[in-house]
């Protein structure tokens, strides 16, 4: 029981409870801004969690993960612009498109290792960015406005802030649960083993590439879902969401929260985006503080926030 009560688990439990009860708080205080802010945070937490699957558990440092936010978003946006507003069509398309992109990019990129892998995933994401910029019909650089959110035949009303928030939260927790099951399954063991020592894994008989590819595709698909959610949240999608610095943001969230931990990306996303929000209210030049802060965290904080908490418990 003592183990369960360590600092990390307590904090995670509190955060989860807080997220669940947030709409209650905002309906009492009437502070709608906080609700929309946290909807955005929850969506990015899902994206970060999907990145953590390949980075933290799989050891694949992808610098192009934001591409899936764009692909999912544009799937929703383009279909909406063409008159197809049903979420039952838009979202599966978003997932399928993301999976396909991940399949192609993964098949090509996973032939490389280390910094080459980082760069090639970055390049593919930039390609997606430029493709989106070149779509004159769908706004190009200016982006695409989505006039009506995805409809689900009356099952759920995405225009209702509270309903939408809980949908995003459900996707986040569902995603984390799925990752938990995957990571502990046979498949997850192989992927983690490949991160730990690929030569050893090959020697005992595991073909590395196919397992890594499948993991890559799962992560990309999950992020595509986040992309569809994000497009609905902002009623807008533009190439900017795929720019490489956005992929950097996602990486920061994962590393900040603690790579390879289940709830780390969620904590990381919350801290990073809240910090960004708070700092930008204090000063227009919030990056002046955020930048060196990141630097300090890298220099002194191993394993992110959850890692730090773990050490505090032991020490």
């Amino acid at each position, binding site marked *: 029981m003592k183990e369960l009560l360590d600092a990390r688990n307590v904090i995670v439990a509190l955060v989860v409870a807080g997220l669940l009860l947030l709409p209650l708080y905002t309906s009492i205080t009437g502070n709608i801004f906080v609700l929309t802010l946290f909807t955005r945070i929850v969506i990015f937490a899902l994206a970060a969690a999907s990145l953590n699957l390949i980075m933290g558990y799989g050891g694949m440092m992808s610098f192009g993960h934001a591409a899936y936010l764009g692909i999912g978003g544009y799937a929703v946006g383009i279909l909406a612009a063409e008159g197809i507003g049903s979420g039952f069509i838009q979202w599966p398309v978003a997932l399928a498109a993301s999976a396909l992109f991940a399949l192609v990019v993964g098949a090509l990129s996973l032939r490389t290792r280390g910094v080459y892998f980082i760069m090639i995933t970055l390049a593919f994401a930039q390609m997606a960015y430029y493709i989106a910029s070149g779509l004159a019909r769908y706004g190009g650089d200016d982006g695409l406005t989505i006039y009506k959110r995805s409809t689900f035949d009356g099952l759920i009303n995405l225009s209702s802030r509270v309903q939408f928030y809980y949908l995003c939260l459900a996707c986040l927790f569902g995603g984390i649960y799925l990752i938990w099951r995957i990571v502990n*399954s*046979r498949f997850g*063991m192989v992927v983690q083993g490949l991160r730990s*020592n690929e030569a*050893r894994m090959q*020697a005992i008989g*595991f073909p590395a590439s196919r397992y890594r590819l499948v993991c890559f595709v799962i992560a990309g698909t999950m992020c595509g879902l986040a992309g569809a959610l994000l497009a609905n949240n902002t009623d807008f999608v533009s190439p900017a969401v795929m720019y490489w610095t956005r992929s950097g943001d996602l990486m920061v969230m994962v590393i900040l929260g603690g790579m390879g931990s289940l709830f780390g990306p969620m904590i990381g996303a919350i801290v990073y985006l809240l910090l960004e929000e708070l700092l930008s209210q204090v000063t227009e030049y919030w990056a002046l503080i955020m930048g060196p802060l990141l630097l300090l965290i890298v220099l002194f904080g191993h394993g992110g926030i959850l890692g730090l908490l773990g050490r505090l418990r032991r020490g």
Partner: protein
Amino acid sequence: MADPLLRVENLVLRFGGIVATDNVSLDVAGGELHAVIGPNGAGKTTLISQLTGQLLPHSGTIRLAGADITRVPAYRRSALGLARSFQITSLLLDFTAIDNVALAAQAHDGHSFYFWSNARKERHLRRTALAALDRVGLGHRADVLVSRLSHGEQRELELAVALATKPQLLLLDEPMAGLGSTESARMVKLLQELRREVTIVLVEHDMDAVFALADRISVMVYGRVIASGAPAAIRQNEEVRRAYLGDQHAVTRHG
């Protein structure tokens, strides 16, 4: 001999200007314990890496039970019955001992595209893993993180991992490296038991162990096999004494 289990013929591997494997030919009969010895840099580990598929030779053939495996990818050779231990301990450090062995068992238990059930709860895998651990004497350390095991225990774990894949040919690359005298003795005893069940190719520097265990010995120097035969014959061989067993190169037990 009757069809050998492992037949290596004219294997050549070059790294830039260096000939790491210089026309190596070697036969290992089923059931024997064949030791490969030689000074550091002789190309023993390079040979093992070609046998396991981590390196591909430029020319020559490797046959396992008659089948040509020269260009078969590394992961496939394990299914064909080849297992190795690494010279520099190569385990999954952030997993427990039993996790490491269970993964090896998992690799030989069908595919691993199962995404839902907890792999650690698969009883038959855990049973096989525990059995292999008990075999090498690590049963009581099953749930310890590999990074927390002593060096000797890690070497033994390497062996357990290799055994869990139920190999017909075991390639051991300096299993006694860095072991103290008690641990070495334990390893020798273990290998004495294992040799009755599986064919072993043993690369070692520990001469006492080699002469105690080997049915036949091949000596490698500068990438070539300069002598191959029964231990007694090797001991007498002039060339071998000069190159390796001579006064300057008296190699005894480590530690």
